[in-house]
């Protein structure tokens, strides 16, 4: 796995408990109101429809339904890391910031993935397609890994 990706995933695990604490701490604030009202708990399921609970995710959902991956990968397959802590940390992180951003309306539109989310997605591609891309993986990783999204950015939800 690429150096930058594994590094950011390690940071994830280390700070996971902290973040969960922050999320819990703000639990009485507007974040939690949103969280519950917007069916926040469904967020912790693997059902893509749960994501579409937020209308700002609706377009992605609609596109995913038409995507080549609809039958083989859900949102979480691509957007969360595989291990348990990483998974729920990422969800908590997204969940918190999504609720916050959604409530305040203060986010950049169109939504762009942050660098960390990009790394997670690419790790997911490799998780499923590791074999097929083995031959093209960089022999000298310090030069940087192949950016799958340069060519395949639309596989999850062609919009």
């Amino acid at each position, binding site marked *: 796995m690429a150096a930058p990706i594994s590094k950011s995933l390690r940071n994830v695990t280390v700070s996971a408990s902290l973040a969960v604490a922050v999320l819990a701490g703000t639990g009485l604030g507007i974040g939690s*109101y*949103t969280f519950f*009202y*917007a069916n926040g708990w469904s967020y912790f399921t693997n059902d893509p429809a749960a994501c579409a609970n937020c*209308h*700002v995710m609706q377009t992605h959902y609609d596109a995913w339904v038409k995507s080549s991956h609809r039958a083989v990968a859900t949102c979480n397959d691509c957007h969360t890391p595989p291990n348990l802590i990483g998974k729920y940390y990422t969800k908590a992180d997204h969940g918190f910031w999504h609720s916050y951003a*959604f*409530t305040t*309306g203060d986010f*950049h*539109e*169109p939504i*762009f993935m942050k660098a960390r989310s990009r790394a997670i997605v690419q790790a997911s591609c490799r998780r499923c397609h590791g074999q097929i891309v083995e031959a093209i993986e960089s022999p000298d990783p310090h030069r940087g890994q192949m950016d799958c999204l340069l060519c395949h*950015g639309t596989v999850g939800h062609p*919009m």
Partner: protein
Amino acid sequence: NIFQRKQEARNPFYRVVELTDETEDPAIWGKNFPLQYDSYKRTVDQVRTRFGGSEARPRTPTSADPRSIVSQSKIEEDPRLKVMWAGYAFARDTREERGHAYMLEDQTFTERQLVVQQPGACLHCHASVYVPYKKQGNGDLMAGFAKVNQMPFAEARKLVTHPVSCIDCHDPATMALRITRPGFLEGIRALKATEGVANYDPNTMATRQEMRSYVCAQCHVEYYFKGQEKRLVYPWAKGLKVDNIIAYYDEIGFKDWTHAETGAPTLKAQHPEFEMWNQGIHARSSVACADCHMPYKREGATKISDHHVRSPLLNINHACQTCHRWPEAELKARAEAIQERTYHLRNLAMDALIDLIKDIKAAKDAGETDDKLAPIRDFQRKAQFYLDFVEAENSMGFHAPQESARILAESIDFSRKGQLLARSLSPAKRP
């Protein structure tokens, strides 16, 4: 908050007033569609970009022209334009265009009105004419159009009240887009006929995505006034490219004016945005005018079309980033790289044309006959129209980067070949 948002999402249109096919005033439509109306009103804003937008310049109002703010003058920014248009009203007053809110007053008070007696046909694109046309035609749009075209401008002016308004683009019953402009209905029919489609009617035959450009193409196009009836015509019967359009004008022997310094029968191109966009990769990819100039924006839970029609470079995140996932600064730089290249060539072509005009003038002053001058004046006519086709097109090449450069290259070639011919005339006669 979320509760309100969910409400909004369920109920985006509040039908508080009844709209009819006679409701001209946008404020009334605004009661039903306050979000669209609010953004529509913002076309009064003036912000300049590197090559577009507009700059608010204060002026002292007079009784003849009560405007206290106008936008910058193009002919003062580049005085070569006065030579290029010598003898035509545009050499007197041409300004950077600004938001839709100003269209009626800018037309009414431009000094061009002082130079030529303008016809009522002008109003077609500067006012909400749908209801007035129908009234003048006793319910028949085309008849009203024909009638208003021929009126003197001042008389026709009294028939209208608003700049382009909701009713000019929307069907009041369904809010669907519709074409209300006779000029476009006739123009697109002629164009489609060349493609083998008979009796084309956009109001029944266009796709929704096409309509998102056609409503703009009602006005953002090249035009001329035909014959005594001053009928407004879009010169598309041979196609939309600059080469097709000049071939059309040549065939009917049309000229806009006679150049004051050379006597050439010249043509003025005007805002061929639709024509140029058609040659570009965005049109080819079905990206409509509205996608960039009226992109969707979120208002609570609803997404609406931003009716603040303006330069997309003032609104890059909505106008471009939905399709292009690059940072705003990068997208701006990409557009400007295209525009800078176009601007550079436009300047080369302008220099070449000015040189040609000088040479023709010299030959004329030396007493060369009209017969001998005719082919040279034809080079001027071509060089001028090709250059103006890019100059008057308001995206500075963005709508079709390579095509704009191609047109300018041809303009340079015409100007320089004209010079060679001018100088080949008997030098003995030279002053």
